[in-house]
């Protein structure tokens, strides 16, 4: 009887407690980290096995998890399924406002990864033309936030269009099939749509792309600050390797994504800069502007202190010089 009660209690505890809590302080048995087609750095990390080598001596394994967008990375971070997740800066802010206990600790890229995309044969040429149209979008990601700001800039809102919620790759397919009229795109799918299907980027705004940011959960950071520093140091190695060896970065990226070289060149050479690492004033300002615009558009409730949340979100102490 006692053992059954004990079993029930521990089962209840296991279901109620966030997964992270179950892992005691000290050291974890594995570090779970995401890779994504919108972040080239971890692909190289993974390909070279740099993190595995770094943590081998501690007996800590590395588990790689693919995320299909900022929303997925945030979802996995929220559930304690990953310890490090790649998102857009503004997406992390929106996640934090919606109660996700994360910290933005590192910049992996300055991308122009999103724009508003349509097929070559549609009559859509400017933001105003979207009125009443079906637009594929993934909520809680940079393309979503980009779309909201674009609409806001011409005095429109999401209510003036018909948003169709699809994860980025499905959004591209829906656009090409003709199910939707436009798509808030994301690279590399966006570059592929341009090259392979002649899709047009009818609205671009590099400044409204809000940085590629690496996030971790408050709990992981509290329990393992030193491990976090070491992870970021290895991340830095990979980022610098990419800067110095574009051809190898491209080869790794092509191996994983099976995309043609022309597509990869557009994404990695033309639209991604890997020369930043710290979440500094420039990044903060860009994320803040996005947050304020989202508040104006009603996506963020009026009573939220965006600036304060941003301060709570960003923590750049873990990056070495």
């Amino acid at each position, binding site marked *: 009887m006692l053992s059954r009660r004990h079993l029930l209690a521990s089962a209840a505890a296991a279901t109620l407690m966030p997964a992270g809590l179950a892992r005691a302080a000290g050291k974890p048995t594995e570090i779970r980290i995401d890779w994504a087609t919108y972040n080239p750095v971890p692909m190289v990390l993974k390909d070279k096995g740099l993190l595995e080598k770094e943590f081998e001596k501690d007996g800590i394994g590395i588990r790689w998890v693919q995320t299909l967008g900022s929303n997925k990375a945030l979802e996995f971070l*929220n559930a304690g399924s990953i310890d490090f997740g790649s998102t857009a800066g503004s997406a992390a802010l929106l996640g934090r406002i919606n109660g996700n206990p994360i910290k933005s600790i590192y910049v992996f890229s300055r991308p122009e990864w999103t724009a508003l995309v349509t097929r070559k044969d549609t009559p859509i040429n400017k933001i105003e033309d979207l009125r009443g149209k*079906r637009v594929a979008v993934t909520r809680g*990601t940079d393309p979503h936030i980009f779309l909201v700001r674009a609409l806001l800039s011409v005095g429109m809102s999401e209510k003036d269009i018909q948003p169709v919620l699809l994860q980025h790759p499905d959004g591209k397919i829906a656009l090409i099939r003709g199910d939707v009229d436009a798509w808030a795109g994301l690279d590399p799918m966006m570059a592929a749509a341009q090259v392979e299907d002649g899709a047009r980027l009818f609205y671009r705004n590099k400044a409204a792309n809000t940085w590629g940011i690496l996030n971790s959960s408050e709990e992981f950071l509290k329990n393992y600050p030193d491990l976090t520093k070491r992870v970021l140091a290895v991340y830095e190695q990979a980022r610098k390797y990419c800067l110095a060896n574009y051809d190898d970065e491209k080869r790794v990226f092509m191996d994983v994504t099976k995309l043609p070289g022309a597509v990869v060149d557009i994404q990695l050479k033309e639209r991604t800069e890997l020369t930043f690492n710290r979440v500094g004033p420039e990044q903060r300002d860009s994320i803040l502007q996005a947050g304020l615009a989202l508040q104006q558009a009603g996506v963020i409730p009026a009573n939220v202190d965006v600036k304060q949340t941003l301060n709570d979100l960003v923590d750049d102490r873990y990056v070495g010089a």
Partner: protein
Amino acid sequence: MSPVTMTIAAQNTGSEGTPSEAAPVERASARPWSRRLMRPALGLALPVVLAVAWEFIVRMGWASGRLAPPPSVIFATFVDLARTGELQRHTLVTLGRVAAGFGIGVAAATVIGAAAGYSPLVRRLIDPSIQGLRAIPSIAWVPLFILWLGIFEASKVTLIAVGVFFPVYLGLMGAIQSVDRKLVEVGRAFRLSDVEMVRRILLPAVLPAYVISLRSGLGLGWMFVIAAELMGASEGLGYLLIDGQQLGKPAEIVAAIVAFAIVGKATDWLIVLAAAPFLRWEDVVRQD
């Protein structure tokens, strides 16, 4: 009413001439009213206790309620969504899809199921193929339907109709096949015409099983409307669900699920209510 009280009531009605025995009859008929109020309340007890317990646990700070929001937060989200009219709009859209898919699925299943149940030739001809198709999990159709019909209404309604079709088809065909031979022979003995045979013997005999199959068909319809709305939607309760997922708002997800539960239960109840007059003839042991 338990069998015992039924017999007593029957005895009383048998001797209703004497005024002294009229009182127990009244008492027996007054009792179900209080019970009618009590019974739904009994069904609510478990969810209410669980909800209050979770609210208490979160209020006491024993759990954060971040991933599993307490009832008060869910209720606030519900009210918020209802105030902006979003909840009503999404519910109506989903209801419309289920209604359309259910209608088409039931119509097709009734015609084909009746034919296969009635005629051995039709059954041998089509039943094996339909049973083969039934073995395919309906979700497996999703990628094909997207290719053939796109991601909007046509593919959604088709998917729901496919989900509804099989249980209704199977239920109706089985019910027709298992009509009691003795009933049919009684009908023959009374020299009923074919039309009368169907109206007075076959239909009443088939209806109870048919209603059950409609209810399980509707249940599957609600299941598939989710699958349909997850494949990309701009409105509907499934849209609310994905919106809550993509933006990381568990309260919105639970609110959408609760809306599903309420509307699903309500439509099921409607079927039961609509079918009740046709099932009056049944002579069964009722436990309620």
